[in-house]
């Protein structure tokens, strides 16, 4: 049976997609997560159900102690498959969290800007997301929340190694900071490969948001730090912010060059994408992502005066299977889902 709180969550707009932020024409969102663990408890990978539940009880009581009353709490063992997919599609929870039979949960603020997974790979995975490019602000938010939490929790911490995490790749600050970038200009002008390779050489991780590896749909990329030890949180954020600033610059220049030299090609691509979404009757997720990306590009260039960039942002989430199913009812196969996806898109674009 579905958790009624999921419906409440679906009524809200997704704060980090629906609101405005700095450089939002290229940077969709800035995200930071902190990995934290409790002293004296095994990491979840080495826990039985009972130990997991003990950790959950400790974390939950710390959360109830100092929170606004409107935060939502989900227990994994009380969610059905569709609930889980909704949380996954909104990037609130991971598949690893759902792999636990007992003792795993999720806390989130109603605007989804601040959330906490309990018993994922680490006892606590705190996450904060804001729209646009503003990592410092995200860090301020999550740092304060982490301090409040740690007042009630005994974190596993070593003076030399920092926060002790289940995976040594998170050791030290336990911090992974990332920015989601929309880079159609670099993709259309065939510069993306070289640019991303350069980013990787500087020891940052880059991955496509949708699809693995080369199969990059929607031209969305996430750039994040890899090293978590040996630098302070502000140092990591500064280094990452520098590279993000450069990527935003490259993308801007690529867009300007495309408009100066190949404007007809660009208008044609964007126009065709609009035609597809506005008039299609079957729409695969791949075609939807690629068309949405072009429309977002068109909105940035002022081709659609009436369309709002935040609506396009939210559509990137709403075209996913579990969200479609919630809006239009269950369907038996992917083909029927393509029909629903096309219907939703026509309705949205009719405005």
């Amino acid at each position, binding site marked *: 049976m579905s958790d009624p709180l999921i419906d409440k969550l679906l009524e809200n707009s997704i704060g980090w997609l629906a609101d405005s932020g700095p450089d939002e024409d290229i940077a969709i969102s800035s995200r930071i997560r902190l990995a934290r663990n409790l002293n004296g408890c095994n990491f979840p*990978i080495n826990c039985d159900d009972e130990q997991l539940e003990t950790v959950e009880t400790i974390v939950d009581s710390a959360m109830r102690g100092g929170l606004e009353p409107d935060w939502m709490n989900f227990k994994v063992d009380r969610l059905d498959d569709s609930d889980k997919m909704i949380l996954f599609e909104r990037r609130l929870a991971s598949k690893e969290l759902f792999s636990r039979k007992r003792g795993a949960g999720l806390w989130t603020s109603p605007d989804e800007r601040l959330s906490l997974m309990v018993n994922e790979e680490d006892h606590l995975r705190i996450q904060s997301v804001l729209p646009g490019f503003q990592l410092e602000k995200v860090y301020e938010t999550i740092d304060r929340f982490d301090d409040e939490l740690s007042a009630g929790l005994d974190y596993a911490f070593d003076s030399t190694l920092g926060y*002790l995490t289940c995976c040594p790749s998170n050791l030290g600050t336990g911090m992974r900071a990332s920015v989601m970038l929309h880079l159609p200009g670099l993709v259309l002008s065939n510069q*993306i490969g070289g640019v991303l390779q350069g980013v990787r050489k500087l020891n940052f991780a880059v991955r496509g948001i949708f699809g693995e590896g080369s199969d990059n749909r929607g031209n969305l990329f996430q750039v994040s730090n890899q090293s978590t*030890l*040996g*630098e302070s949180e502000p140092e990591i954020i500064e280094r990452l912010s520098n590279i993000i600033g450069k990527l935003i610059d490259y993308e801007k220049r690529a867009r300007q060059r495309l408009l100066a030299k190949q404007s007809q090609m660009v208008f044609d691509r964007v126009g065709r994408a609009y035609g597809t979404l506005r008039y299609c009757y079957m729409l695969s997720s791949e075609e939807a992502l690629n068309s949405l990306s072009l429309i977002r590009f068109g909105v940035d260039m002022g081709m659609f005066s009436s369309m709002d960039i935040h609506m396009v942002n939210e559509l990137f989430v709403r075209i996913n299977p579990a969200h479609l199913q919630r809006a239009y009812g269950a369907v038996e196969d992917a083909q029927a889902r393509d029909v629903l996806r096309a219907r939703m898109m026509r309705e949205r674009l009719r405005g």
Partner: protein
Amino acid sequence: MLCEICGKNEATIHIEEITDGKSKTLHLCGECMAKNPSLGGVDINAFNLGDIICNWAGGVNKKHSDNGDNNSESSDNKKTVICDVCGWTAEKLHKTGRMGCPECYRYFHDMLAPALNTMHRGITHTGKNPAGNALSPEREILIQISALKNEQKKCIAAEDYEQAAVLRDKISSLEEDLKRQNTGAENE
């Protein structure tokens, strides 16, 4: 599939690189990965961390046996390390690339140290402390040392050996301070 670098070991790590929109996969073994941090810029979670950690540890153990100490145990040294607190074994660390509990870091520290150096930009935490956990004098010194070492690396890269020597002296004097702090604490 064999490692594309040494052509000897089984490739257990597969790194995908995207060039001009085309993806190419590099297949290599844990040993070569550990030896070539420049291949880095890859997502550390995307390959088997356990392999890297244990290939490094394998190298470390070999060195020990060359020195002649603990000869009898050395060959399966890494298999016998176990965390007394949670029961996690080196074998499980190898298989998962994960620790079993916070105390595991004490028991597997020697196995882990070289891998940490490859994975991260430093080996000393210089970031925040849990709130209410004031900075100990010992930690303050550690942080200073780490900052000076970074500075020193930059000087050496820029071939400013004079300044690097000055920094080296500062570092060793701080390390003396640290030793004094530690023995002071033990005598208390």
